[in-house]
């Protein structure tokens, strides 16, 4: 067990890389989620269908397969080379994006039709209604889901170790191969737990801040 101590710094560095890739993927997923989520709730049928296909496809294919596709498939198709870091980020972003689309969509749809009508009757247009009336209410549904997505991205990023991306898990595996002990994996597990638990605590604190006075 003591053998892992000299490697703690390395493991923490691995955890930071995991956090970095997940955060980057989350930001991309948020952008995808908001844009595609708004499209998915619009009245344009073709765009709705396209959003549906994206969400269903990504949710039905294992993350590992998507990762292989990003790392081995995309370079073949587009004559670009992704580093493991880029491939992992792209795969996680597309993966998280699909779930984020659903989170944004259900947030928007949680806001009743009467809110849209009240705004329309006041002469407030679509984008202003979305910005000032719907989004602030939708966020109460979307935000907790987004925190959950961030956590699954964080854990999901461990899959990227398979394409040689040295994040937290791969760091632990490398150390284990040096010191022949399972303790680095145990430490990695603890670091994953601390990050995810911290995020979920942070998530519920933010969630509380978005509550507003009274019922209804």
């Amino acid at each position: 067990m003591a053998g892992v101590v000299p490697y703690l710094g390395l493991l923490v560095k691995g955890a930071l890389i995991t956090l970095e890739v997940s955060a980057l993927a989350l930001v991309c997923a948020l952008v995808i989620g908001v844009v595609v989520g708004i499209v998915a709730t619009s009245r344009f049928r073709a765009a709705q269908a396209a959003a549906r296909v994206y969400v269903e496809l990504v949710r039905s294919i294992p993350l590992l397969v998507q990762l292989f596709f990003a790392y081995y498939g995309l370079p073949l198709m587009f004559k670009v080379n992704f580093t493991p870091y880029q491939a992992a980020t792209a795969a996680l972003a597309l993966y998280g994006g699909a779930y984020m689309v659903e989170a944004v969509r259900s947030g928007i749809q949680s806001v009743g039709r009467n809110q849209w009508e009240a705004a329309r009757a006041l002469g407030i247009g679509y984008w202003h209604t979305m910005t000032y009336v719907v989004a602030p209410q939708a966020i109460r549904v979307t935000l907790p889901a987004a925190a959950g997505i961030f956590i699954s991205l964080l854990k999901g990023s461990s899959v990227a170790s398979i394409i040689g991306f040295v994040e937290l898990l791969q760091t632990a595996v490398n150390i284990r191969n040096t010191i022949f002990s399972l303790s680095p994996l145990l430490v990695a597990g603890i670091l994953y737990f601390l990050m995810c638990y911290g995020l979920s605590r942070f998530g519920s604190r933010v969630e509380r801040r978005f509550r507003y006075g009274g019922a209804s």
Partner: protein
Amino acid sequence: MSAAPAAAGMLSVEGLVKRFGSRTVLNGITFQVTPGEVLVIIGPSGGGKSTLLRCVNGLEDFSSGRIVLDGLVVQPSGANIWEVRKRAGMIFQHFNLFPHLTARQNIELAPRVALRRPASECRERAEALLARVGLAEFGHHYPGQLSGGQQQRVAIARALAMDPKLMLFDEPTSALDPETVGEVLAVMKELATGGMTMVVVTHELNFAKEVGDRILFMDAGVVVEDGTPGELLSQPRNPRTRQFIQAVL
């Protein structure tokens, strides 16, 4: 107001037909409202009253007919529909306030984003309107912290903030506790006295008698009878009208 030509009216509805699938909800509605007039529409539920109001400000499309509001031809997908909505304030049965905004923010929002008025001006106006509906102290309350009657008064202030030429009321007191109905009707009466043109769908026949200049009785998508409160409520000509008024009173 003497018989003004249709062009001088605030609102003119001619031969309005609205179908939902095979069901005809409005079957040739025609009436005029002159500036400053209070038109009360009564009739049984499902008779098309709400649908009629919703057609006037383009919340609902219609099948045929013509609506002219303050000189603007209303077409739900037409370019001027936003102009129409700015000129016609609407009060809903269930208030439809924005629950994440305080009473004052509810009132400020539309003038600020739809008319691009400066924030300070919107704020002052909101305070004044809150005072006008008797809620000067409640500006920082969220809708969830207000009673139904207070919420509906905020909704009226919110509509007035857009300086509408015409106010549409869709059963404004039907969702209220009996003890708060009076405060909403009092605000509406004050509006009417101030010269606001109003179209009010309601079951409050006392309000119709006291404040209404004219009453329209609607049933099954048509205007059954149209007259002054004195005529229509005391001596209804149509047996259907008589039956309804006896049942409600």
